[in-house]
Every structure is written in C-alpha cells, then in structure tokens.
C-alpha cells in the first residue's frame, strides 16, 4: 500500500491537524510515514502545503514527485488547483468549495469551479457551512478529512479511533464534535 497526499490551504486553516489525524491512523496500521511540514514565514496568511506519504514499504523522499500524488486535500478551492501538476491522472481532489479571498487578484470563482469540475475525481464541499449548520463550527477540517476517507484508502473506524486519540486531551465535547464532523464528511463523499 502506498498513498501520497498533498494537504494544502491558507496559513492558519488547520491543515496540520488533518495531517496529525491521518498520521496517527497510519502509525496504528504500522505503515511507514513521512510528513514534510511548513513552518516559518509562509504561515502568515500565505499558501501552505504539507506532503504526507504513507506506505507499507520504507519511504525514501520526504517530497512527492510531480504527477505522483494520489490525493490532494485542500481547505480552499484555488489552493487545490495550485498543486494540480502533482496529481496523478486517477488521483482525487477533496476540497472546500468556499474561496478564502485575502488577495486583490483572486481569480473568477466560477472559472475556478469550472476548472476543478474538469478533473476526473473531485469532491468539493462547503465544509465551513456544513460545520456551522451541524453545530460543529470548529471542525470544518475534520469534515474534509471524512470526505477523503475512501480516497485515502484508510478504514473509517481507524480514522475515528485516531480522531478520538488526537482530540482526547481537549475533552469529550471536542472529541464528539470531531467524530460528528468526520461522519458528516464520510456521508458527503457519496
């Protein structure tokens, strides 16, 4: 088994929490993992990305090659497009559909949607709205993770266990909110 994942978004959107949960689930499966993170200047409202590689065999490179990613998980639709050259033909994009506009020259949103729709395997969800509507306003990123479950090739209950372990130190209410978010995402992936 080998899954190469690009996690992306805008600094501060919580992509590293998604990475932490996937990492925890993969560790429990005894998979090899490499996770290249983004620290420093790029976190200040700029584009951020993390390369997460899971494999049953030892992993050499910390970075994913062009055309090598199985999944792009993005907290922002234009940011998903930024890493398109890394996506395999049969790869999946799991993305938030709501733009985060903090630049004056953000492209036309309809054009962004249309370009995304032209890719073979795309799940685009308004995760922020879903999170608000379902009373889990701080768990939009975990909804996105739930929606990526099949594409990641990880069993649902393994992800659920990982969410439980990762959030347990924040109390039962936070755990339950994130379990609910994970289920919402799973149901939305169709």
């Amino acid at each position, binding site marked *: 088994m080998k899954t190469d994942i690009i996690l992306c978004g805008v600094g501060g959107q919580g992509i590293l929490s998604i990475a932490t949960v996937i990492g925890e689930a993969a560790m429990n499966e005894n998979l090899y993992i*490499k996770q290249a993170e983004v620290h420093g200047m790029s*976190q*200040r*409202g700029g*584009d951020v990305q993390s390369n997460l590689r899971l494999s049953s065999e030892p992993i050499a490179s910390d970075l994913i090659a062009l055309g090598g990613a199985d999944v792009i998980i993005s907290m922002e639709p*234009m940011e998903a497009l930024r890493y398109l050259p890394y996506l395999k033909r049969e790869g999946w994009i799991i993305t938030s559909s709501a733009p985060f506009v903090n*630049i004056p020259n*953000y492209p036309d949103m309809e054009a962004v949607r249309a370009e995304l729709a032209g890719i073979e395997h795309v799940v685009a969800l308004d995760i922020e709205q879903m999170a608000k509507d379902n009373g889990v306003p701080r768990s939009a990123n975990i909804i996105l993770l739930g929606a990526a479950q099949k594409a990641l090739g990880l069993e649902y209950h393994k992800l659920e266990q990982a969410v439980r372990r990762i959030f347990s130190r924040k109390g039962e209410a936070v755990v339950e909110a994130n379990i609910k978010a994970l289920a919402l995402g799973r149901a939305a992936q169709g």
Partner: protein
Amino acid sequence: MEKQFLLGDEAIALGAIHAGLSGVYAYPGTPSTEITEYIQANSLARERGIHSRWCTNEKTAMEAALGMSYAGRRALVCMKHVGMNVCADAFVNAAITGTGGGLVVVAADDPSMHSSQNEQDSRFYGRFAMVPILEPSNQQEAYDMTRLAFDLSEQLALPVLLRVVTRLAHSRASVVVADEARAVNSLSPAEGKNWVLLPAIARRQYEALIGKQPQMMTLSEESAYNRSESYGRPRLGIIACGIGYNYVRECRPEDVLLLKVSQYPLPEKQVRQLAEACDAIMVVEDGQPVVEQEVKVLLGRDYKVLGRLTGHLPRTGELTPDNVAAAFGRRQEQAYGTAKNLAARPPQLCPGCGHRDVYTALNQVAAQYPGARIFGDIGCYTLGALPPFQSIASCVDMGASITMAKGAADAGLRPAIAVIGDSTFTHSGMTGLLDAVNDRSPITVIISDNLTTAMTGGQDSAGTNKFEAICLGLGVEPEHVRVVVPLPKNMEEITRILREEIEYEGVSVIIPRRECIQTLRRHLREKQKEAGNA
C-alpha cells in the same frame, strides 16, 4: 527501544538530550527553532536542569556553549544558516582553542530560501574551520548522528558541525529512540593556557588542528554513514550527500554505484574507488556545489564530474525528486499541467497586527518627504515591503536597518528611517545605534515592539521591558525616546510624533509597543484554560 514520530529538528533535540547534554544555546531561526523548543518542553531536560533559555543572538549562543564546553560539559548550539555568519568568529576560533565537553553546532540550511535571504551552504564553514561535519539523510540518522557528533567532538576535542536542510528539519518520520539517556558530564574545567589565543599559543593550537586532519579523514573513511551501494552493472558513479541520497533512492537508479556521504571531510579513499569503478561521477547534494568542486579537484581535469556546475542539476534551489530524476534522464509522467485560474498568495501581516499601524503611519508621513527612505530589517515586518504597504527599501541582515540608515544619512539622505523589531534590535541593532549616537546621525529609528520573536512562532524576546533603558543607556537623549501604542485610533498622535522626530537632526527612537496578535491569542487561551482548571 521506542518509536516516536519526530521532526528532524526534534530528533536532533532528543538525540542531544540522550547524549548527555547539559545546555542548548540558540537564537530562533527557521528552520532550526524547533530543536530548542523541544528541549525546553522535554521533561527529562527539565528534570536534569538542562539550560535551554533563548540567547540574544547566535554569537552569544556560540560563546556561552564554548564556555560550557570549557567547563567540561556537553553543549549544543542551534541556528539557521545565516546565524553562522553572526557567530563565525567564535565558531572558527573554537576549532583553534579546541573543546572540553562535547560541542555540537547545528546549522539548518534553507536551500530554495523558503524563509531566508540567501541559500549559503554551512558546509563551507565546517571546511573553513577544519572541523568534522555530519549531514544526516533522514530523521533516524538525525537522532543517531547527534550522539555521534558529541562522541566525535570529545574524541577529537573539536567542535562538530551538524548540517541539516529545511526538508529534513521540518519533515516527520518514525524514529527509534534509546530507552535511556547517558549521564551528563561532571564539571571539569580545562587546565593550562591553550584557550588563551595569544599569537604564540594560537600558532601552536593551529598546528594541533592541522595535525588532527588525517585522523578526521580516517574517521570519515571508516564511518558507517559513508557507504557504497551497487545497483545492476554500474557505469555511473553517484555521490549522494545528506538528503540527496533519498531523492536518488526514490528514482530507483539502475546500473549505478552509489556512495552515500553523511560524514566529512569527504572520504577520499571511497571517492577514488568510485572513480576507478565508473566512467563518470554525478554529485547530488542539497545546497551549493561544495562536494562537486572538491571531487573535481581530487580527480583532476580529465575525470567527468556532473552536478550543479554542469547543469545536470539546477544551480540554485533545493533538490526535489523531480530535478534529481531529471538528472538521470527520467521524467515522471504528469497528468495535469499548471492550473489556469491561479494567483500567488504571498504571506502577509496578520489582521490586527501592530506592524500594520506602524506602516500606515509611516506611509502617511513619508509621503510628505519625497526623499524619505525606510530601511527595513528581518522579521514579520519585512512583509511591509509587499502590498498594500510597500514601505521599506531594504532588508539585508539582522540589525542592518539602523546602520544602513546611518550610512545613508552620512551620505546626505534625509529623512533616513529605520524599522526594526524588538528581538532583532537586541540581536544586532544596539551596537549600530551606539554608532549613530556617537556620530549624532540624523536618523529616526522605529523599534516596533510586539514583545516577542514573532516570525519564528513567538519565542521570548531578550529585551522585553528594557528598550527605553537600553536606548537611554546607549546615549539617545531622553526627549527623543518616544513610546506610542500602534492602534488605528492613535494614528494622529503617532504621525505627529513621527514628524517631530524626523525633523530632529539627531538620533530619535520611537517605540510603537503592542503585543503580537498571535501571542496575545495564545496567552488568552492559556488564561482561559487556567481559569477552567481552577
């Protein structure tokens, strides 16, 4: 043996604790910051009382670590690559004095300049100082080789340079760690006069350093971290240094003889053997072509050496699985090209950040002085160079805002304004301010004080609560040390004070002071948590 999921930086930190560390000395700098932070948060480090408080700059860090080594205990110094420039005097001379307790210097290089102003290669410093250099390929080696670095340092009585790059420092993987930590060294201060680098003694000590070079070469040639791997029927030789090895392995090369190098000096015996067995050698190293040049010298003009200097790999920027594969003539099939609907999203100052108000005020005032130039410095506020502010004219190295403003003022430029952060000011701005005071230079210095070292994640700032006293102590006149609170509602006051001080033909310091919005949020969360627990 236990498995932990660690950043390269964290693996180094834990490796150092387990090697019997007594103190880490560092100034924050991406991508090295997490080493010290890990030690600060580690329970064994606390239990053992391992020193881990941040230093004012890399030079004070290096010297304090050297002092700890003099006293017989093990010390670690960590910095980003440009920090090596700041501490170079102490580093190079530490090779002449030699060391007592193990002294390991970690330089975290940043090829591709993800968060830096250049991509200088710290291995040059290691060679310059003639000390051993270790360059781990992965997180496990980062952990293991930190222990090796301390052992080598104590065996050779020399500082050892441990060089990593961003992609190792900031990437996580499983690391098998020891169950137990070695005891710290006992106090045993050096004896004799070897540490007094008067010319007569320094000459002797330099001879001693030269005398250690053959032993260093033997250690490299016999190191388990410099090893050969053969694939197929080798025709091409590859020298893969540090994480370059990972990218070579990633593209599964055929018919090559691969020499992995993680310990320097470059093992000459293995390089010669490789050259004899192959028709040509390709050097895959992250950073500058340090080894490539060395191999060319070693093998002579007629031997074919490929790498960054021949264009087989890009001359600038970090290695990637893509450019290494391309060097072997491989090309990964790409399903998709660059997207059409894409805009750059550069980093920016946080909403609500005090630096924003400082630049708003500066732009308003500077607009009234056509000749005005604002000299910037290193920190979050460097982002004042980008839209919407586009305020600063320069950003070169820590502290240069003040001294460049001074030099420009000496040349006749008016008004010359410097913008520097609180932590950068104590790092390297104070001495420049003293120069300006002694010269009565007509400059206006803005110390934008957010009470933290913000860009690297909110570490303590050495001068917090001391800035007025420091400026007065350096001789800035009391009526020209002004403090304001950078908020939109105070804009009239701030711009008035700016104008008054710009008009003053001498040194003025204005200190806009308001806590960093990120650390403020963190402190509020911590307070809420405490209140919840109470």
